[in-house]
């Protein structure tokens, strides 16, 4: 975002009447991304969401270095499940482990799952969508058939089924934490690329008929270069919006799986796993559920608002 800043300030600083007098050639250049940033800034909720999300990400990244309590250490000095106190700002869980440390640690995993799963689904979706949109015909029909089929799969039961069937083998191969991480990220990614594929296909189909693509073709640019260098950058808007919203839904899906007991192993404190651990102590220790739940809620809310703002900024026609 910071690279786009100078162009924005110059635009705002230029007196429009003066610019009009000097003629179009003298007018300060407005970049496409500068315009988008300006529209994004007008969306107050999206700006607020971006700020709050930055705070959450920073505290999760830096937090464990400042707040140095071991998330796995059992503190025998504090009564089990005690609420917030001076020694443990957010309280402790049923085994006497510090909840703040566990939430900071868990946030890293939850956010990482969201990001990596999003990257996977966006890459898959972009690849499939661009091939389908660019080549059209039989290729398009075949790929869109697969996309429709994936859209018709019952999502959550399928996620649960695959995790149930493959989790033991993967945790044996890569260790419990890495194995489950790979499995969850892979599965969430593989079941969520369809929206991106459809968006990218639609953009490719309309952009490939533009004159600049024809120009590139007549200059002898290879098909792959046309796809990657000429068409793809023009389709970035909807991809970015979808990618943002995908992070949120991946975080929710991970926490749902963890909440159902199909996610990370017990000593890996993701936000969903913390909720799962706390749900049986709701009456005695509500803090064990409230804090991790609030973190998931706030993070996803921020991401959804940012996605909404980005849609206004990058893709104003497809407003919902």
């Amino acid at each position: 975002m910071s690279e786009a800043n100078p162009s924005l300030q110059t635009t705002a600083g230029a007196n429009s009447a003066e610019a009009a007098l000097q003629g179009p050639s003298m007018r300060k250049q407005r970049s496409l991304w500068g315009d988008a940033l300006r529209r994004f800034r007008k969306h107050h909720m999206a700006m607020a969401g971006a700020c709050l999300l930055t705070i959450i990400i920073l505290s999760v990244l830096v937090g464990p270095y400042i707040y140095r309590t071991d998330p796995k250490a059992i503190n025998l000095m504090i009564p089990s499940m005690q609420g917030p106190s001076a020694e443990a700002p957010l309280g402790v869980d049923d085994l006497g482990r510090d909840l703040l440390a566990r939430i900071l640690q868990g946030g890293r995993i939850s956010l990482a799952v969201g990001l990596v799963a999003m990257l996977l689904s966006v890459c898959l979706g972009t690849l499939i969508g661009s091939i389908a949109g660019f080549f059209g015909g039989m290729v398009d029909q075949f790929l869109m058939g697969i996309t429709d089929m994936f859209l018709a799969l019952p999502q959550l039961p399928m996620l649960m089924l695959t995790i149930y069937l493959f989790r033991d083998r993967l945790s044996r191969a890569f260790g419990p934490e890495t194995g489950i991480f790979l499995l969850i990220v892979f599965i969430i990614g593989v079941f969520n690329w369809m929206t991106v594929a459809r968006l990218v296909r639609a953009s490719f189909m309309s952009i490939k008929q533009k004159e600049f693509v024809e120009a590139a073709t007549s200059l002898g640019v290879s098909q792959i270069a046309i796809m990657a260098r000429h068409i793809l950058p023009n389709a970035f808007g909807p991809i970015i919006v979808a990618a943002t919203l995908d992070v949120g839904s991946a975080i929710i899906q991970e926490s749902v799986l963890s909440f159902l007991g199909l996610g990370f192993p017990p000593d890996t404190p993701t936000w969903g796993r913390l909720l799962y651990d706390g749900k049986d102590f709701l009456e005695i220790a509500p803090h064990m559920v409230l804090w991790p739940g609030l973190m998931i809620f706030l993070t996803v809310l921020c991401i959804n608002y940012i996605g909404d703002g980005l849609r206004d900024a990058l893709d104003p026609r497809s407003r919902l």
Partner: protein
Amino acid sequence: MTAYIIRRILIAIPTLLVISFVIFSILALAPGDPMSQFAANPNVPAEVRERIRESLGLNDPFLVRYGKWFVSMLRGEWGFSFASRVPVIELIKQRLPQTITVIGIAYLVSIMIAIPVGIISSVKPYSIFDNLATTFAFIGFSVPTFFTGLVLILIFSVNLKWFPFIYDSTLQVRDWESFVKMVKQSAMPVTVLALFQAGTLTRFMRASMLDNLPLDYTRTARAKGLSERVVILRHVLRNSLIPVVTLIALGLPTVFAGAIVTEQIFRIQGIGELLISSIGRSDTPVIMSVAFISAILVVTFNLVADIIYGILDPRIRYS
């Protein structure tokens, strides 16, 4: 119209075939062998094990096994639960009513909230009401259902003690007293599901109304001197409902997924709970059947959505 419906059904059948094939292959590719228990048992010699495999058809080619499985699923022979030895279809018959009541009521509630709120929001966009409604809708679909559920339990069961927080699935409505009990125990699960669904639906309803409001036919209706009420409710609403009705049909399988979580929170003995407990017990026949049912649900409701769309919007039929 008949031709359109037949065409849609012809598209739905291969989809169901492919989905069931995917479910079957995931299971077939998965590690683990039904005979592994015998492999560990020294009393079962290798050739006996081989004969059992042969008699169960485990040595058949993959496609043959899939064919047999699919045919017996369609005929309602879903096998027996490993854990309880009860026919799977009996288990599902026991569980389905619980799920359908909760999901059905929640879905109706969410539609009854979403449509009026969406209409009012779109008539005066960016008013105070619209901003409030949009914010609530945003929160509605950003809060994961498990969190809403736990917060509701905390407020209404633990603190206020208004509602019980465990759903009693054996309760049957016979008289007024048991009816009140039923309403009380359903209140929270229904709210959780309805809140989530209403969020998406409200936004969709509002967007669809806003698409139709600036169109020519709206202006014509106003120019004829019709009252604003008639313009909105008779002209704009009817056309705006077309995509929303489709979304409602398409969304039902999603609510089904939401019910898996909700049932877990409130301990409703429904079909989602059956799926999770079967996964815990590695009860493969039950897991497969529930996955198959949800696949059928998805395909059926896609079909229903297509047909409704065709009825409401005649243009679709000819494209």
